[in-house]
């Protein structure tokens, strides 16, 4: 029998297509119906393929089954009689045929429009990411719960509230008008950025899951770049940033799954294809004259793909962090800037600038000071690492700090 995990694979690739197409057909109000039909289709497949074996074209089989279920639903329920039918009759006369369009073109269009519907500022960013993982990436509720380090119940509640809210604001599944495009694209990019970060920096220990989350963010961003209406410079900048970061995926964890710090990574494990692709997107991002936060972060990420340490590398990174901090201040960015500064101008100057930040409640602040004092004042280095250890909350962070303390003692 088939040893490939056929159903999880198809669920990941086909569930979202079926949901998007049906949802576009029914309208966003019926998103749960679209999700139910898609889930039900997989249940029927499990049963039928279990008895007879999988069909020669499993995706086509799923589409047909989903189509039949959708037609059945439309005929059975009043939305067809009361809403769809009058509109269709008004437009087309009496000759009504329910045709669910599962052509590749409509699948692509539907998914892109669904992306705009889900990434709507009416719901929280957390909900946008969760809903995107569910309806656009085909993640199971358990997987989403694992990625967010919470329970299925919490995720189910969050998604239900998000769908209700989107219904309240009467969200449509359609492309934004050209005049609205920039305003609507903003939240979409924020969601993709958060989705990527969720995978890249999540505390979840499941590395395969985390990588999948990052690759999904890249896939959704690719959809935006492949459409002329959304292929804007800052979309390319975000894509470049994600490619550059993703290039280090295999280098940043060791065989036991523990995090390998940038300084200790083997550059030969960096993915050259992703770095090259990122560079192409970075060049496309340079069109136009607006500099978004994604441009700056892509610039920082680009210089991190350069293997050799040079004053140019670290001064460029400091420069981009300066611009980023002006655009929107964050303690993490300020600490990262201080680290880059130490590589450029030396530890003494970086210590002065870091201590001026006075981020007393932040364990990264003390961890950085611990690193900077290493080689200058061992006692102060240990003191700072001790404070970092007391503030660190995750086992992985604590373990990394203990390792540093042991090395210094």
């Amino acid at each position: 029998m088939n040893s490939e995990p056929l159903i999880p694979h198809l669920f990941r690739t086909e569930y979202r297509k079926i949901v998007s197409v049906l949802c576009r057909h029914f309208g966003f109000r019926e998103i749960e119906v679209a999700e139910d039909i898609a889930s039900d289709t997989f249940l029927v497949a499990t049963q039928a393929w279990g008895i007879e074996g999988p069909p020669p074209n499993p995706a086509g089989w799923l589409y047909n089954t989903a189509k039949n279920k959708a037609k059945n639903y439309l005929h059975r329920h009043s939305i067809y009689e009361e809403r769809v039918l009058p509109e269709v009759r008004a437009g087309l006369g009496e000759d009504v045929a329910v045709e669910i369009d599962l052509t590749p073109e409509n699948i692509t269009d539907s998914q892109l429009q669904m992306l705009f519907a889900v990434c709507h500022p009416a719901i929280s960013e957390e909900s946008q990411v969760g809903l995107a993982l569910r309806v656009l990436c085909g993640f199971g509720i358990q997987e989403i719960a694992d990625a967010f380090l919470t329970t299925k119940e919490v995720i189910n509640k969050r998604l239900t509230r998000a769908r209700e809210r989107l219904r309240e604001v009467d969200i449509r599944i359609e492309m934004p008008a050209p005049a609205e495009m920039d305003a609507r694209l903003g939240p979409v990019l924020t969601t993709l950025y958060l989705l990527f970060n969720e995978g890249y920096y999540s505390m979840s220990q499941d590395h395969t899951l985390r990588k999948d989350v990052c690759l999904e963010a890249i896939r959704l961003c690719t959809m935006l770049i492949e459409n002329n209406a959304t292929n804007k410079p800052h979309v390319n900048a975000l894509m470049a940033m994600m490619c550059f970061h993703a290039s280090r995926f295999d280098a940043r964890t060791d065989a036991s799954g523990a995090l390998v710090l940038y300084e200790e990574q083997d550059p030969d494990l960096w993915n050259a294809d992703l770095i090259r692709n990122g560079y192409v997107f970075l060049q496309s991002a340079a069109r136009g004259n607006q500099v978004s936060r994604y441009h700056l972060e892509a610039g920082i990420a680009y210089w991190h793909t350069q293997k050799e340490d040079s004053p140019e590398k670290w001064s460029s990174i400091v420069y981009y962090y300066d611009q980023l901090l002006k655009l929107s201040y964050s303690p993490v960015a300020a600490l990262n800037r201080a680290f880059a500064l130490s590589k450029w101008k030396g530890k003494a100057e970086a210590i002065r600038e870091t201590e001026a930040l006075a981020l007393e409640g932040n364990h990264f602040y003390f961890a950085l000071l611990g690193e900077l004092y290493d080689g200058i004042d061992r006692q102060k280095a240990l003191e700072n690492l001790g404070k970092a250890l007391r503030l660190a909350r995750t086992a992985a962070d604590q373990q990394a700090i203990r390792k540093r303390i042991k090395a210094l003692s």
Partner: protein
Amino acid sequence: MEEYLILMRLDLLTKEAQPSPEQMQEYMKQYHHWINGIVEEGKFAGGKGLSTEGKVLKPNNVVTDGPYAETKESLAGFIVIRAESFDDAMRLAAQCPILNGDGNSVEVRKIVSVHEQ
């Protein structure tokens, strides 16, 4: 050899209890294993899965939606087997993976044919 119909009934799932794709993969594998065992004994005569939607017709033009309008159970699939006896049919039916789920059931019925009596 006698023919038997094995009907598999599924307790309709609540949304929260929906299996994950990995679980569905596992169910499918269990089905393959079960059916293959029957095929290897030379006793498999055919079978199909059933979609969940359907209609029920009753006298006086009464039509209800779905087989599950009044019951939580729905027919999920059926197979026909050739078995030496009712006990033999029961033995094969008892290995049906649907029985791993609470509330599910399997019904075994002997098929009677006018040609063989």
